[in-house]
C-alpha cells in the first residue's frame, strides 16, 4: 500500500530533477532544508531520524542532492523525506515536506481490532513493518 504523507504524495514519485527544483524553491525562500529517514511509516510518527544537520545558508540545490544521494546509499530501502523549515519570526515551522524515497515494497497497515467491554470494538492501525524490530525492517 502506497503511503500518502506530505506534499505531492498523490502524484507519481518525483524524479531527481523535480526534487532539485522543489529544493531550489525552498532555498530561494530562505528555508533550511532537512533530510530525514525512517522505517516506521505510521502517520503519527512525526519525528523521523535526521540525516546530518539542517542545511542553512545554501544557495544551490546540488548540495542537498549530494546529501540525498549519500542518504539513499545507506537508507535506500527506507522512507526518506525532505522538509523545509522557515525560521522567520511568526512562522518558525515546517513549510514544506515531501517524500523523496520509498522502500521497494510498501507493506501497508494491519487493521488491529481490540475487543472492549460490552461487545465494543476499538480499531487501530499498525504498519506491518513494525512487527519486526528496528533495523530489521525493509531489508
Amino acid at each position, binding site marked *: 500500500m502506497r503511503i500518502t504523507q506530505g506534499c505531492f504524495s498523490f502524484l507519481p514519485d518525483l524524479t531527481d530533477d523535480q526534487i532539485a527544483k522543489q529544493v531550489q524553491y525552498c532555498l530561494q525562500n530562505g528555508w533550511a532544508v532537512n533530510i530525514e529517514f525512517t522505517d516506521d511509516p505510521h502517520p503519527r510518527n512525526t519525528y523521523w531520524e535526521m540525516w546530518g544537520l539542517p542545511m542553512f545558508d545554501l544557495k544551490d540545490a*546540488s548540495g542537498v542532492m549530494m546529501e540525498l544521494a549519500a542518504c539513499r546509499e545507506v537508507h535506500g530501502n527506507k522512507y526518506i523525506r525532505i522538509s523545509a523549515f522557515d525560521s522567520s519570526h511568526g512562522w518558525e515551522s515546517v513549510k514544506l515536506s515531501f517524500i523523496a524515497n520509498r522502500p521497494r515494497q510498501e507493506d501497508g497497515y494491519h487493521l488491529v481490532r481490540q475487543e472492549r467491554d460490552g461487545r465494543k470494538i476499538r480499531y487501530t492501525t499498525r504498519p506491518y513493518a513494525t512487527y519486526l524490530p528496528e533495523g530489521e525492517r525493509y531489508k
Partner: protein
Amino acid sequence: MISADGNALPNAAADEHGQIDLRSEFAEAGIADLLEGLDRDLVGLVPVKTRIREISSLLLVERIRKRFQLSGEAPTLHMSFTGNPGTGKTTVAMRMADILHKLGFIRRGQLVSVTRDDLVGQYIGHTAPKTKEILKKAMGGVLFIDEAYYLYRPENERDYGQEAIEILLQVMENQREDIVVILAGYADRMDRFFSSNPGFRSRIAHHVEFPDYDDEELLRIAEAILSRQNYKLSTSGRDALIAYIKMRRGQPHFSNARSIRNALDRARLRQANRIFDAKVPVSLSDLSTIDAPDILASRVFRGSEFVPKVEA
C-alpha cells in the same frame, strides 16, 4: 582573444550551422562590462587580465559549442591564484565568480571564501562534516580557499588536513558542473603544496600568477583608494608617498597594495590629529587633504637619510 570593446573579434567561420556572430554572443553574455570594469578598477596586473580574457573567450566559445552539441562534458574550471600578499587575488576571485555566473558556468555566482580553519576540524570525525558543509554552501558558486597550502601539513602525519583534501578532490572531480574551486597562496609554498598533492595539480586547469606591483602602480592604487574615500593628496603629500613606497618596499613584511592601504589608514589618523591640534577653523579642503607630514611621520622613515621637511 577578446578585446575590451569587443571590436577585435572576428566573426566565427561558417560551418554547417551557418554564421555565428561571436560579437553579439559576447554582448549578450554581458561580460564586456565585467572585463572593462576589471581593466578600470584594477591597476596593473596585465598578465592576470590577459589570462582572464583568455579564459572568458574559451568559456564563451565553449558555451556556443554546447548550444550546438559540439561539446559533451563540462570544462574543468578550477583555478589556482599564486602571488605575493596584497596582489589582488581575492578581488580577482570575486570578479571571476561574476564572469563565470554571467557565462552560465555556475548557477548562482556566490563566492565563499574560506581558510584552513573553516575546512579542517579539531578532532576525529569533525573534519568531514565541516568540509562538506562548506562545500554545500559553495555549490552553485565559487569556493575560494585562501592560503591553501596550510591544508597540508607534512610534519604531522595525523593531521586532519589530508581528510579535507580528499573530500575536496572528490567533489572537484565528480561535481564539476556544481562548483568551481579557486586555490590561492604564495607562489613558492603553493608549488610545494602541489608537488606533495599531485591530485590537485592535475585537477586544476588554470594556474594564474599575480605579479608584484611596481612603485608607479602602487601610487595609482593609493590615489584610487583615497579618491574612493573622498580624500586627495597635496603635491608635497604625493612626493612624500612616492618616497614612502620606495622605502617601504625594502622593509620586511611588505605586502603590496595591502601595505599601502594600511599606510593610508594611518595617514588619515595623523591627518585627523593634525587638523584637530591646529586649533584653527578648518576648510572642506583641509578635511579631505592628506599632506606630507601625515605620511612623513611614518615609522618607515625613521633612521633614514630622507629628512622630512618640517612645514610651518
